[in-house]
């Protein structure tokens, strides 16, 4: 596929702007008093718009523009039911837990998700296990993002896959290191607007809905009827997917920590409302674009390439350059959030808390940078041999986070009965249930996804174990539940 010079120039200048923003954020940070507070949570200073866009672009990922349109394209109207979990993002991801989590985090100086568990359950072990889980699933997640980015570079610029991975790793690593969370935030705001604009333009290019639906029914009647082609989404799977692509958001370490950056309750409430609106517009417009693509191009060899293909084919040169950056925006914002979360897991939750509690500011700074670079390098190497199904890795990683952390968050912060042992075992049992089920030939007993089973097991373990083990100190509990 031939990409015009104008498209390439727009695309490249976009990256120059991104790096510039990171440098600006670096200078803001240089003068900060507390490095960790600033690097990881930007001094808890963000208003509603920036939080909403950061949150939404951390959640939407390379999958949103590469794997997801491939699902829409291949499965037709049923894929909208698959996606409908997104309807609850603002409600469950922000409004449900926002006040409790942001306030607790501020009062106990938490900057990472494991910090929350360590402070709530007074268990350092829980912090370590949480950090390990974040490393394992976070790295899997990032691998999927690197591959998505490389696929775009491959399709658009014709860059060889290996080089695409390396250049992407270098750009993202550098920009996260320089900018920290503030850089990620400023960039994300810009990227979010680009994504929004890009999707809206695609809908315009798509043509009328009745005509599209008519064409789809002609290609294959299953494209308009559930469960979709090849029995894509039986009802129990549909039900499970609401949890993976909706409810699970409340337990994603790189998304939850966004709540820590909120300035005040006013910003938090507004951000929750904005998130639900932004994601509705994004997903609906992407969906309609992908359906239109199916009507226009009934056959494609690699469905993962459908978004790049329609952009290059159906929009002008200048527009294509901007639209090209949309998936990149999604990938980079997710990867840099994840790099911050995973390096935080190594740095704060494992190294500082257990080996060197009195580390100097300078030592913290150096180890944070080393952890950030090391993780980028590991992910880069793991991405050299791409696995086949991009969206599957994303769903696996999201489910892994959700199975480990959802119940400890809900029952730890909204139920007085949770004990340290209950929290620890519920986290481990959710995580183990998921891994065991994924290793089975039939990972979906009764048609329900491993995540649903993981959540059930984790909740039961939390309640039962908490009933029979020693609670936290009663003065401490009275204080945090007053």
């Amino acid at each position, binding site marked *: 596929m031939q990409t015009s010079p104008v498209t390439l120039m727009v695309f490249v200048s976009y990256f120059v702007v991104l790096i510039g923003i990171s440098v600006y954020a670096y200078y803001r940070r240089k003068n900060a008093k507390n490095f960790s507070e600033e690097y990881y949570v930007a001094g808890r200073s963000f208003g509603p718009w920036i939080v909403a866009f950061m949150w939404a672009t951390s959640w939407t990922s390379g999958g949103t523009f590469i794997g997801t349109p491939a699902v829409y394209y291949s499965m037709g109207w049923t894929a*909208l039911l698959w996606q*409908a979990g997104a309807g609850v993002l603002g409600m469950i991801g*922000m409004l449900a837990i926002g*006040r409790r989590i942001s306030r607790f985090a501020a009062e106990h100086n938490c900057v990472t998700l494991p910090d929350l568990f360590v402070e709530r359950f007074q268990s350092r072990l829980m912090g370590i296990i949480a950090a390990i889980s974040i490393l394992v699933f976070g790295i899997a997640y990032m691998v999927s993002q690197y591959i998505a980015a490389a696929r775009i570079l491959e399709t658009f610029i014709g860059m060889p896959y290996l080089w695409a991975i390396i250049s992407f790793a270098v750009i993202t690593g550098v920009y996260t290191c320089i900018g920290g969370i503030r850089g990620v935030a400023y960039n994300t705001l810009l990227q979010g607007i680009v994504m929004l604009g890009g999707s809206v333009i695609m809908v315009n290019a798509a043509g009328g809905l009745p005509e599209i*639906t008519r064409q789809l029914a002609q290609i294959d009647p299953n494209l308009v009827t559930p469960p979709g082609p090849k029995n894509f989404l039986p009802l129990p799977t549909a039900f499970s997917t609401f949890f993976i692509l909706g409810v699970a958001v409340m337990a994603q370490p790189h998304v939850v920590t966004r709540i820590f950056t909120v300035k005040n309750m006013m910003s938090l409430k507004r951000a929750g409302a904005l998130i639900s609106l932004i994601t509705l517009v994004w997903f609906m417009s992407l969906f309609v674009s992908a359906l239109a693509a199916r009507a226009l191009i009934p056959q494609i060899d690699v469905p993962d390439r459908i978004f790049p293909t329609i952009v290059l084919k159906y929009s002008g040169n200048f527009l294509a350059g901007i639209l090209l950056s949309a998936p990149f925006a999604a990938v980079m914002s997710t990867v840099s959030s994840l790099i911050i979360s995973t390096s935080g897991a190594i740095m704060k939750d494992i190294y500082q808390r257990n080996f060197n509690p009195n580390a100097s500011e300078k030592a913290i700074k150096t180890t944070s940078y080393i952890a950030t670079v090391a993780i980028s390098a590991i992910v880069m190497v793991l991405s050299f041999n791409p696995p086949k199904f991009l969206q599957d890795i994303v769903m696996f990683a999201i489910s892994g986070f959700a199975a480990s952390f959802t119940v400890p968050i809900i029952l730890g912060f909204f139920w007085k009965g949770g004990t340290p042992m209950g929290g620890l075992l519920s986290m481990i049992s959710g995580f183990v249930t998921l891994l065991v089920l994924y290793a089975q030939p039939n990972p979906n007993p009764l048609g329900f996804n491993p995540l649903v089973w993981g959540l059930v097991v984790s909740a039961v373990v939390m309640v039962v174990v908490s009933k029979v083990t020693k609670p936290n100190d009663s003065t401490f509990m009275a204080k945090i539940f007053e």
Partner: protein
Amino acid sequence: MQKTASKQGKSSYALSLKEFKFAFSSTMIYILLSCAISYVLGYNKPAGEITVIWGMPSWVLFGVVIPWVLMVLLTIVYGFFIMEGDEK
């Protein structure tokens, strides 16, 4: 930091618990409704018998699009107008 977060003098924990309950139950209702409506209007029918409204299959309109839009409206109304307490 202020202990009382709302006009009625509720503690921050009491308020957050109330918000959690509301958000969690509305989420569950949304999921069940969406699955139930899609089942009745879509899963239950053979491929040829789907009616189309405004260019989309009726099961998608009533089972997915309308519930999703209503959920977004509820989130906006709840976030902007109903949730109490603006403390830091």
